[in-house]
């Protein structure tokens, strides 16, 4: 459908006003809200994610595209709630205790939203108890942690240790990322996944949630 394609294209260009107007128009023309969501907004965001991964677009382009997606989602959400649309999964995300860097974490949150997740963004300097209690409160599937500093990355392990202490470790998929993080560190602290960039994180999260559900 042409209007769905247009929504996706304007989203990729970061044109929030156009996306909002087109989503409103599509709804008024009776287009299915789920189709607008999946084939317009999320599909556009997935294309941006793929281009970001391939260094075809960069952080500013992802930010403006995500903002356009959120503008469209705001219009769409009442309709989605009405028809009982369920998200792909639920995630809590934050930068770990002692670390105030959030641009990478924000990109991941945007990409997760763009992949159809409901995201609870806990911000920066988040301690283990906040990660876990919010995950419990929001019935999250994923706990996503970010760190930029080598001095704060060990705090990711505190969250995993606390999950173990509370007997909740198996309940959550734990994903970590950030400049100093790598796969061997993820294994060392007992995280489920390390991903090198925001787009890969969203893809991996989707697969992991589907695998866990099956």
């Amino acid at each position, binding site marked *: 459908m042409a209007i769905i394609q247009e929504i996706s294209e304007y989203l990729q260009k*970061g044109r929030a006003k156009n996306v909002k107007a087109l989503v409103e128009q599509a709804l008024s023309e009776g287009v299915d809200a789920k189709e607008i969501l999946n084939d317009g907004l999320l599909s556009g965001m997935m294309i941006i994610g793929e281009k970001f991964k391939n*260094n075809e*677009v*960069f*952080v*500013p*382009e992802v*930010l*403006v595209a995500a*903002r356009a997606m959120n503008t469209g989602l705001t219009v769409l959400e009442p309709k989605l709630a009405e028809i009982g649309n369920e998200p792909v999964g639920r995630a809590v995300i934050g930068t770990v205790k002692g670390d*105030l*860097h*959030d*641009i*990478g974490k*924000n990109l991941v949150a945007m990409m997760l939203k763009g992949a159809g997740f409901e995201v609870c963004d806990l911000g920066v300097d988040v301690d283990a108890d906040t990660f876990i209690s919010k995950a419990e409160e929001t019935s999250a599937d994923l706990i996503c942690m970010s760190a930029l500093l*080598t*001095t704060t990355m060990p705090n990711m392990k505190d969250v995993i240790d606390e999950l173990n202490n509370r007997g909740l470790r198996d309940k959550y998929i734990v994903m970590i990322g950030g*400049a*100093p993080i790598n796969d061997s560190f993820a294994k060392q602290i007992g995280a489920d996944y390390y991903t*090198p*960039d925001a787009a890969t994180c969203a893809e991996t999260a989707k697969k992991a949630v589907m695998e866990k559900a099956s």
Partner: protein
Amino acid sequence: MTNRERVKAVLNGEKPDRLPAVEWASWWDQTVNKWIEQGMPRPEGDDPIQRFYGLDPLRQIWIGPKAADCPAPAHHGAGLMEDEEGYEALKPYLYPEASIESAVQTALAWKEGHERGDYAQWLTLEGFFWFPRTLFGIENHLYSFYDYPELLHQINQDLTEYHLKCLERVLPIYQPEFMTFAEDMSYNLGPMLSKECYDEFMLPYYKQVIPVLKEHGVKVLIDTDGNVEPLIPWFKEAGIEGVLPLERQAGVDVNRIRQNYSEWIMVGGYNKLVMHLGEDAMREEFERILPAMKSGRYVPSVDHQTPPDVTMEQYKIYVKLLKEYGKKAVED
């Protein structure tokens, strides 16, 4: 050779008696505090940490375009303004004469020692990615390429004019061996912005400032962390001649850069994360970068500030090896 002659020789691709043993980054306060606990005297006077460890002094003048009484951001990464109106309100605190005067006074005070060759000097100017980011804040700056393109151009033109004014006053007094544009425009996955945004919002301003620096024989480098390798062709186009700090953790490889760019100046490149592992690991890291050290136009140095988990004794070993490999690099 004097310290100054040694740095100059390396930057020009000439053979020195040994490589300079310098640290480009100032030391992290947490690291310094730990070293004091471990027995290092509290730093006092000129080049105190260099004197304690036996490093060659390398002095920096940083000309900041914000006045001392400029409002501070509410927290790390926060902005000072949002739009054109905010910029106009902030302007009385920007581009201060006092910073230029302070740079002039420092240059005069250091002139004699510099001319004698006691130390090399470098100058830092805040760049066309860095400075607008400090005004908008980290995230809003990234939006500004799309939301406030005209304002971004205005800020960078104002900054250019300020830089030119600074250079007009400072360069007749002293000519640093090199300068850096502080940018931090790359991260572990490469550039933070597209080539199109770089071409539009940064390149025209570099092209106004760089020729003035080169006229005075100053080597022009850029300071950007993370994986800088994909950006080198962009920088060359602007007339930039080298880069620091070349972070290994982001995958940067000084030997690969040398293979691809034979005349590119490099400072840094030594993986800071091996330093706490002891002498064998540090030696292995020096062996890794030795080919680049031998190739010239490379000043090996820690690839950013030395982390606090490196003890005073370990840092002494690092300096010992830096000097040992600095000699090895110039042996036939």
